[in-house]
């Protein structure tokens, strides 16, 4: 009996989660600039309106920032996670706490304090300053994901490789990296998505080079642009879902294949 109550609740909760998300595709195909029921007819003109150069530039900007942030954050996370899991360091807790600190600080504070810093040292706002802000937000995520992965990692494997005559680089490349790969991919995905969707810090730091969320924010003020924005949201949703399914398939394939080459 309890099972059934829980299942009913789960379905109800799922409906609550999906209600706002369904609004996006429904009204993105509605042939009216006003977003209200009843629907007036089917159109794809809002999707045609997406061929807008400012929008495409914002998309490119967001992709650039997301990729660079994901790579840098994962690299930093990898080094730091190795340090805190495989070495007995004094001040380990302090270091971990410091890297995780941005999780406990509201984004608005991170955004304006970085804005102050860049203004004070006279650096112009650009995509690079957005990357800096996103690095701060993403590093704790990378660290958490990779520390969890390193904790299940047997350092004896690296020693065995060294004992068998591999140098440090080949040991990293043929032992550490393949074993860490699922963690690395998880970290890259998580940080890319976080950066790609981050609005507030980018709003303060992007200057004239709008990222996609900053562009969307600028469009929300114009009622006539809204259906186009909904079309954009629908596309982002579809692409993300396809990527998640693909990533999951790749992950399953990776499990079947032997991870470490001979």
């Amino acid at each position, binding site marked *: 009996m*309890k*099972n059934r109550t*829980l*299942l009913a*609740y*789960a379905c109800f*909760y*799922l409906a609550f*989660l*999906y*209600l*706002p*998300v369904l*609004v996006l595709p429904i009204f993105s195909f509605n042939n009216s600039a006003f*977003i209200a*029921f*009843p629907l007036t007819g089917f159109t794809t003109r809002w999707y045609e309106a997406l061929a807008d150069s400012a929008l495409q530039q914002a998309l490119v900007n967001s992709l650039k920032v997301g990729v660079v942030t994901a790579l840098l954050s994962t690299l*930093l*996370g990898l*080094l*730091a996670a190795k*340090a*805190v899991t*495989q*070495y*007995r*360091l004094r001040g380990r807790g302090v270091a971990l706490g*410091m*890297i995780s*600190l*941005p*999780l*406990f*600080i*509201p984004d*608005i*504070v*991170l955004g*304006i*304090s*970085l804005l*102050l*810093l860049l203004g004070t040292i006279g650096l112009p706002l650009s995509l690079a300053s957005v990357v800096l*802000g996103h*690095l*701060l937000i993403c*590093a704790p995520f990378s660290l958490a994901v990779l520390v969890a992965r390193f904790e299940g990692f047997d350092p004896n494997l690296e020693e065995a490789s060294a004992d068998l005559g591999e140098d440090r680089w080949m040991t990293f490349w043929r032992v550490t990296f393949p074993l860490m790969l699922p963690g690395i991919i998880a970290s890259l995905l998580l940080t890319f998505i976080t950066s790609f*969707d981050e*609005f*507030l810090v980018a709003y303060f730091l992007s200057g004239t080079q709008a990222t996609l*969320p900053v562009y969307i*924010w600028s469009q*929300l003020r114009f009622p006539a642009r809204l259906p186009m924005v909904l079309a954009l*949201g*629908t596309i*982002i*949703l579809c692409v993300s*879902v396809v990527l*998640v399914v693909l990533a*999951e398939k790749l992950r399953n394939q990776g499990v079947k294949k032997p991870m470490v080459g001979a």
Partner: protein
Amino acid sequence: MRERGGVADKGRNVRQGYALLAPTLVVVGLTLAAPLGLLLITSLKSQSGIGFEAGWTLAQYSEVLGRGSYRILFARSVVVAALVTALTVALAYPMAYFVAFHARRKFLWLILLTIPFWTSYLLRVFAWKIILGYGGVINSGLLGLGLIAEPLGSLLYNPFAVVVTLAHAWAAFAILPIYVSLEKIDRSLLEAGSDLGDSKLRRFLRITLPLSMPGVIGAAILIFVPTTGDFVTPELVGGPAGAMIANIIETQFTQVGNWPLGAALALVSMTMVAVLAGLFVAAARAAARAVR
């Protein structure tokens, strides 16, 4: 074979460890410590035209702590964030419990639960504006069905709209940590509880709930901190009655141009969030210990 474990080797290892840690600490230092230091310095100045006046002052802090309208904003931000946190965790717990203990295809459920979060945060929040608005989904739907004669004006632009929207926007941050902590629970502990005669409810209260507290606490912190400082949701669905602290901070930095006041507001809200989050973690841990 190489020799390992000697004293010299250990010393080298420790240095290597710090070297691995250094790049991240430098980046965090440059992007966190330095900006926060500057924020503190700025908050001790006062604005004069486009620059700051010479000398130091606590004027911003007395303004921030003394003015009633700021106190209302601080209080509203904390109350809204606390309500959102409690509501989100309470709604997500049974869902996570269902997936962890009763769902047959766990993975499918987890994917289904996360898909709504794979689109822009801004648009998820904006969708609620469409749903709750005067000519929105609920009003036009109810009108169309003939259930109401004129649109309900009270759905949007108030703290209620902010709470509902945020409880939706942050749901994944509650479901996933709670699910992980429930999934980790050793099932034999539950069997032992039953074998020793505990009722289902007692078993839940004495074993499942305390053991899942790390997930609940983690979720609460993950939600409370960002929602206290959320800017987008109050701006889009809050209206003047639902404005929160981040909105006034943003205004100081963009429209008003009073950076010292904005800096003081930011530092006070940051401290407030940190203190409240710390108190909450301590209280939750004490409560979990008391139950056991």
